[in-house]
Structure formats: C-alpha cells, structure tokens
C-alpha cells in the first residue's frame, strides 16, 4: 500500500454541509434542522485509506452518502479527480458512479432477499451496459472467486449465507465495476470478531491488487487505526481532528480524541484502566481513563461555539460562543480547539474556565 503524499487528491471535500429538515405542525412546515454534517472539509489521496471515526450520530455516514450523491448536499462541494461532482448530471454522473462504490454496514439488509447473489453482484454491469449475459456471468464468477466465494454460490439467495459471506457479496458487488474509490461504511461492525479479521485482510489485499482508495467509516478505533493511513475524528457534524494515523494515536490533541482513545477497553488485563474510584493505589501499567460526563447533545440544536464544550474537560468561556477554526497545530496535524491551536489561543488563555464537567 503506497500513499502518494504529494499527488493531487483523488477526492476533495470542501465545506460540506448537510441539514435534514424536521417537519411538524399543522402545515407540515420545516420547524427545525438536523445538522448532520456541519462544514466538513478533507481530501483523500489516491491509494490511501482515509478513516472517518466518531460515535453514532456524528455524521460520518452522512458524509459518505453525500459524497456519493446518494443524498443531496445542502452546501459545499465535492470533487473527484478534479471534477465537481455536485455540478455533474446525467451520463457524466452515471459514468463516474462506476468509479465510486460503497460497501454497507449491514450485510443482511443491503442485499435484496429475492435475488440470487449472482444477479446482485452483476446488476451493476447490466445497468452500465454490459448486455451480454455470458460476459456478465464470466465477470461475476471472476469477482466472486476473488473475494473468496465459490462460483456455484451465484445461484443461491442471500439468506443462505453467513454474515461474513454476505459481506463478501457486498464487496464483490462494489468491486465488479472496477472502481477507483470505495466508501466502506462500517463494513465489519456487524460481524463476529473471527470474521472481522478475514474481511479486513480481504479489503487490504484488494486495495493492494487494484490500487483502490478507501474512505473507511467506522466507530471502532482499533479497526480504523489498523486500516487507515490518515484519520479524521468527527463530533456532532464536524471534523475536530485530522492527522496521519501514527501521529493521531501518538499525540492526540483534541480533548474529544483523547477521551475517545482512552475509553476503548483494551484486550489486555494488565493495561486495565484506572478510574478515579480505584486509582489511589497508583498501580502500574494502566492507562488513565478520561470518562466524559453526559451524552452527545442532539444535532437538532447543537451547542453554540465549539460543539464539544458541554462535555469538554478544558472548556473555557470563549468555547461557548466562538467555534474554533480548523488549524494546523503541527505538521499535517489539524485540530479544531482553542486550547491547542488557532487564532484564539491567547483569548482562550485569558478566558475563565467553565465549571468542570469531567472525572479524570
């Protein structure tokens, strides 16, 4: 897997915004908006895996779907190989869709139960004008073999397969169009652990073999760390931190990223994390866990200023009214936090602390 750091990005997302209207009342008017994605920018370089992590409702899936134009964006732009996706229509868009595919989280609901898997996998070819049945079957057989499914399975129906096999079908369906770019939306989170590793290895092999670029969306940080070259961390519709994988895990700068990293239970009892309640012994080896209080606020009415300030351990008065701009805190390490970087750092230092909302 080679990452071409200097090359032009394959995909550029600029100031992407997606609001969903909330309707209600007698006349079914828009009474509020869900700010699912609220000004997100990043780019994805050819051949790399860009990971997007965050908790449920942070907008990561909406980013993936908006990029593929599966749902229209409210504002912003996305360009693929330098061409503006949102300005494109008709046949141009159709052609481009071959290059951009998606693998869904739930292999149970993303396959039509009434279609044999051979047809599911080959449907894209038909849509894109491969009318010759023989040729289609041939390519279905090839791609099924490549993802580790026996060719004779093509006549079976989705319910006859296990979760891991169904995810392989989903991958085959994406792969058959010979795409350049695949959005992987939580591709392993519905799978058992022993099957997860099979699918992760497969995704890596395919990337190396076909030079694929992935946007890998997941909530499991260990999985994202394993597969991604760079990672963007999302919170309530915004990217709060973006860096190369090793840098992000070695030096998380945003307080949310720090809490998220410390919250993962590691499968190693010697590194069992200490809580405030039993940290008196000062036992060795444990990481100190930062437990955020409270829940993620609703994206219908997100907090003013920095979206994270209601749960942030280091929030100050300025965070309540001024949203921190996305700034480069270290080389190629961007973060949106007044405490760490940006034009308001001095103002932050002079600002009074908000009452502590955290146990350490």
């Amino acid at each position, binding site marked *: 897997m080679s990452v071409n750091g200097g090359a032009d990005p394959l995909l550029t997302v600029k100031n992407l915004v997606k609001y969903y209207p909330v309707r209600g009342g007698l006349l079914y008017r828009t009474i509020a908006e869900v700010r699912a994605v609220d000004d997100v920018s990043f780019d994805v370089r050819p051949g790399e895996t860009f990971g997007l992590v965050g*908790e*449920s409702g942070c907008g990561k899936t909406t980013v993936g779907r908006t990029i593929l134009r599966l749902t229209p964006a409210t504002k912003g732009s996305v360009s693929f190989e330098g061409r503006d996706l949102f300005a494109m229509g008709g046949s141009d868009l159709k052609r481009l869709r071959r290059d951009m595919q998606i693998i869904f989280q739930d292999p149970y609901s993303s396959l039509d139960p009434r279609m044999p898997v051979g047809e599911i996998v080959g449907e894209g070819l038909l849509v894109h004008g491969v009318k010759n049945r023989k040729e289609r079957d041939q390519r279905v057989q090839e791609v099924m073999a490549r993802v580790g499914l026996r060719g004779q399975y093509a006549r079976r129906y989705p319910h006859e397969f*296990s979760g*891991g*096999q169904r995810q392989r079908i989903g991958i085959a369906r994406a792969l058959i169009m010979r795409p350049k770019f695949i959005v992987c939306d939580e591709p392993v989170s519905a799978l*058992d*652990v*022993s*099957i*997860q*590793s*099979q699918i*992760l*290895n497969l995704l*890596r092999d395919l990337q190396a073999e076909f030079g694929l670029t992935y946007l890998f969306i997941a*909530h499991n*940080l*260990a*999985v994202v*760390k*394993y*597969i991604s070259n760079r990672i963007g961390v999302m919170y309530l519709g915004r990217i709060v931190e973006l860096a190369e*994988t*090793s840098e992000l*895990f070695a030096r998380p700068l945003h307080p949310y990223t720090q*809490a*998220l*990293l*410390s*919250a*993962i*239970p*590691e*499968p*190693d*009892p*010697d*590194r*069992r*994390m200490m*809580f405030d*309640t*039993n940290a008196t012994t000062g036992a060795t080896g444990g990481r100190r*866990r930062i*437990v*955020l*209080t409270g*829940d*993620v606020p609703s994206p219908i009415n997100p907090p003013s200023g920095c979206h994270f300030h209601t749960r942030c351990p280091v929030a100050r008065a300025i965070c309540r009214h001024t949203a921190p701009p996305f700034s480069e805190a270290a080389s190629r390490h961007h973060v949106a936090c007044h405490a760490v970087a940006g034009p308001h750092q001095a103002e932050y230092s002079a600002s009074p602390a908000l009452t502590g909302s955290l146990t350490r």
Partner: protein
Amino acid sequence: MTATASDPPADEVMLRVSGLRTHFFTADGVVRAVDGVDFAIRRGETLGLVGESGCGKSVTSLSVMRLITPPGRVVEGEIGLEGTNLLALSEEEMYSIRGNRVSMIFQEPMTSLNPVFTVGDQISEAILTHEKVSAEQAKKRAIEMLGLVGIPQPQQRYNAYPHELSGGMRQRVMIAMALSCSPRVLIADEPTTALDVTIQAQILELLKDLKERTRMALLLITHDLGVVAEMCDHVAVMYAGQIVEQADIHNLFKNPKHPYTQGLLASIPTLATQTDTRLNVIQGTVPNLLRLPPGCRFAARCPYAWDTCLETNPRLIDLGDGRRVRCHVHDPDVPKPAPAVAT
C-alpha cells in the same frame, strides 16, 4: 459434572451451574444451543462468558433466569443459587426470585423497557413485586436508585418515559431496576454493546463501582474481549454450545491454551497491532448447531487438528489453578499424532 478440588468452598459460591444442557426442538431438528456447561461464581466476583454469536452464551444466561420458552427447554443440569436449585422450583417460586435474588440486564435497553410506563413506575413495580413496602416507599427507593446509577435530577426523571432518555440513560435505568432489590447475582448480557464507546466507559465504570459496593456476583456476557479484560476476574470462553476454556483473566490473555482462544485473541486488531502486518485469521465459520460434527466442534477450523479430533469430542481437562480446557492437545490420555500429521 461434580465439583472439582480446585473449586471454591461452597459457602462462598453464589451461583453454580452444573451440566447445563438447553436444547431447542425445532422443525428442522434439535439445536443443542447449550450442551454441557459448568461454572461457578463467588461473592464479589465477575465471571466473563465470551464467545461469538450463536455460541450459547445468551441461552446460558436465559436458562439461569428460567426464561427459556418453547421450542427451547433445559433438558439437563442444575442451577444452584446459594444452594437452591432453580430448576427444581415452581414457576411461582421462581417469580419471587427473579428480579430479587438474581437479576438481569439486557443488551438493548429500549426493547427491554415498557414504552407506555414511566421509568420510575417500572422500577417501583419491581420493588413492589418483591417487597412488602408501600407505594410511596417504593417510589422513594426508586428515586434513590436512579440517583445511585448517576441519572441527573432523579426526582424529575422518575416521570420520564423511556423514549425521552438516551441509550446510555436507559441502560442506567435498567441497571437501577435490576439492582433495586439488592440481588446476590447480576447477569449482564452485552450491557454495553449497543452503546457508544464514551458511554460504554461510563456504564462499565458504574457497574464496577456498584459491584464494589454491593459485593454481588456478576456474570458478564459479551463478545468484546476488551470489555472482558477490563471487568472480569475469571473468563469462560464458549464455542458452539460448550465451554472450551476457563481461566483467570491474566492466564487467559497471557497464555491461552485452547486453539480457539488463541486464534480469537490473535485476530482482533487492537491499538497495539502493527498496521503493516496482516491480521491472524481463524479460517472458516462456526458449525451449524443442527448438524454438529461427532468430534471436536472446533476441529474443522483448528490448525492442530488430527484424526482423533474429528472422531471424538474432547473432554474438559483440568489443568490446575482453576484452568480448564477442552482440547485433545492438552489431554494426557490422548495419544498425539506424529509431528508430520499435526501440521
């Protein structure tokens, strides 16, 4: 199976499950979901029951609660709660124990709470079912419980309906309800699986704290080995209806004996996994419980399997210090193959 020498003294054991078999009699045949499971949990101890979907861990917990419904049935075994065999009790007697001396919390707090009653009423109901207290006292206790599990403004939240609360708050309500009658044993079936990682951290911390305070025994069912490492004292690994390995937490993670446990631990990407290595993979998938192989249930996926493994199901070998493993490799009475066959 009877108690072995390494088992704890009986007076300390809160829950002892022996020779449990729970089968489902379906139109397609008999599904042996739980097929001979033994374990014991002492006061103040946490036992983790781990395994992948379909391994029988949830059926085990439902069997302990006597919540198995047809076509399922506990066909054999004993479930001792402080010496009382729950399987010998009448339904009425069980009713007075369930939610009282043994309680359970489930994975999905939205579906296990009743949407048309306030959360406070549901907790009060649990208290009134088991204790001779007035409705007012029950309400007071329910509010106390809501406060204990970290719900802000418990007085107001008493009147909230489940849909008004977030997932994490609902799980706190479930915990409050489960603990409202001070159970001796709490069964938590994937209590954090549906929750986000920062909320999971809150709930795990809460469970740890409550366990310290009440000294209850905790049976924690999960597929997440990270949660196990965080929470448990002992672990039982299940595969296809049987426990394949049992050990204390440090031995299990440091020196797993069963090939399945070894494979499982090696296959999870962790924060420490090198990003440029391939993940270890357990080949194949779990066997169909309707058509279990005659030999070891893991044999088809096992890198060490030889003829014997395909023919006879291994017994659970006691390795001392509370370690047990179901594998012919560790059975001194089973002749080993010539080295060439093993590879």
